[in-house]
């Protein structure tokens, strides 16, 4: 079996690690890069479901938000250890993910999407209206988390490195997964679920498995968020955020892992850059989406592939 980390991917990650050393990476750009990579990682874990298994989850914001609240609740009470935050996030998101995936995987297509959406809306409603979690304001003004006693993750650069490491590990997990036997069964389910079942695979177990992995990775990403933002709000769980995650995957290209990372980063950068020039950035972002669906349905990565092919054809 080939190594999950190709030379090209290793070079990209090395470049990401060196990025803060370049002179033009101000604090603002480091935080922007943090968001871009974090949401890129979320989109990648969502791609496991959509691109590789053919399951469209419309409720990933709940996994992200539950992870964020897990960390926020601990930080609020003075428990600053990052490892405890991550641990709690895995437990909470895991339990919720087990519940959702158990019920949602009994249904296919649009019904799967709707079930994940409604479960997520329940979580959103609970957090939005529970005063112990700060209601609609969420939990604000959190202290920075610590990697070890005395080692705080309190600068944009440290947060940035944290997310690079997270993205690196998550990428290895996803890459290994999709090239394993497990990943091939997922592809078989995507192509023809009934046939996979007749071949003797316990389809629901595989689907639940990949849901849990995707949810867990998203929850971990969520747990990193309060360290950078110093808050967790119910807005992180709103269904429109789930929609944005889906869009990131689509922009990048389904079933490619790398594509959704680019898609997530592209979406965050687009939103941030356009909104710094005009107030009506939603119009621009919305139009870009419409354009991508109409003219680049395979996503940015697919677009590049088509472009390269066209160039090769042009120069025999």
């Amino acid at each position, binding site marked *: 079996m080939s190594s999950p980390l190709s030379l090209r991917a290793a070079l990209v990650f090395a470049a990401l690690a060196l990025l803060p050393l370049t002179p033009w990476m101000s604090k603002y750009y480091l935080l922007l890069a943090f968001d871009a990579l974090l949401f890129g990682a979320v989109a990648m874990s969502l791609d496991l479901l959509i691109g590789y298994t053919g399951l469209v989850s419309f409720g990933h914001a709940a996994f992200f938000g539950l992870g964020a609240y897990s960390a926020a609740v601990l930080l609020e009470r003075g428990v600053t250890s990052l490892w405890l935050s991550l641990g709690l996030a895995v437990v909470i998101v895991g339990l919720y993910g087990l519940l959702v995936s158990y019920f949602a995987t009994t249904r296919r297509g649009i019904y799967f999407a709707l079930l994940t959406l409604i479960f997520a809306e329940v979580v959103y*409603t609970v957090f939005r209206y529970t005063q112990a979690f700060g209601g609609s304001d969420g939990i604000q003004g959190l202290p920075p988390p610590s990697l070890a006693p005395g080692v705080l993750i309190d600068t944009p650069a440290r947060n940035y490195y944290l997310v690079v490491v997270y993205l690196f590990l998550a990428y290895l997990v996803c890459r290994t997964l999709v090239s394993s036997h497990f990943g091939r069964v997922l592809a078989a389910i995507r192509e023809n679920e009934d046939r996979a079942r007749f071949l003797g695979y316990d389809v629901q177990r595989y689907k639940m498995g990949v849901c849990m992995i995707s949810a867990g990775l998203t929850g971990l990403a969520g747990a990193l968020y309060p360290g950078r933002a110093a808050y967790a709000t119910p807005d992180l769980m709103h269904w429109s955020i789930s929609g944005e995650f889906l869009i990131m995957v689509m922009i990048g290209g389904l079933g490619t892992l790398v594509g959704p990372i680019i898609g997530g980063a592209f979406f965050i950068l687009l939103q941030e850059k356009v909104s710094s020039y005009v107030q009506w950035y*939603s119009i621009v972002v919305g139009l870009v989406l419409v354009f991508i*669906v109409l003219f680049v349905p395979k996503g940015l990565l697919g677009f590049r592939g088509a472009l390269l092919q066209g160039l090769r054809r042009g120069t025999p």
Partner: protein
Amino acid sequence: MNFAHGELYMFGAYAGIAAIGLTGSFWLALLAAPLAVGILGAVTEVATLRPLYRREPLYGLILTFGLAMVFREAVRQIWGGDMRRILPPVEGSTPLLGMTYPNYRLFLLVFASALLLGIWLFFTRTRAGIIVRAAVQDAEMLDGLGVNVPRVFTLTFAGSAALAAIAGLLLAPIFTVYPQMGVEMILLAFIVVILGGMGSMGGSVVAAFVIGIAQSLLTLWMNPQRVAIAIFGIMIVVLIVRPRGFFGREGVLE
């Protein structure tokens, strides 16, 4: 599935307010708003949704999500983000069954019933309505019979946009009008459609009654948040036990 439907509903309310401002008449606005939004719907359908017929439904979902963002922000830019209210065109109230009802609500009840009856008659008794149903069931066959299927889809979309606009304007005197109003409504609308069964109008009406009554009854001994969660709970159970809803055909979109 159309994520921008809530925004068409919102457009209806804003177009109505604009028309009231121009003409001073709610009733003229009730004609003008659906007309304007219907045209917008037709243009949108031809320009963006028509190229997607042969693709996965997921693309339509994401496209309409993008359109919803554009529409919402356009309204915010044109009319501002504040909450607005309009006065009900029918004033006074009537005592009925020991309670006092605002006349406007009674008017809504009658108007909505008439509208539903009209839609039902259209789909079951007219040639055009039967063609629309046939287009949903087997577009290729209909095409083979010489019907211009893309035009049917465009007109259906425009009609559904116009209906959303009517709903938006009719509810404007009761609810407040603001750019996010469509987002708040669309989930409830999905829930009603799924619960009733896709493609079954009677089902949608029954489901709307069930949700409405459940909401009112539960409010008696729960706070609104718990009620919202309970409604979601009903929805989850229906989706798991009987995903086609009360009266839906089996296998639609599954």
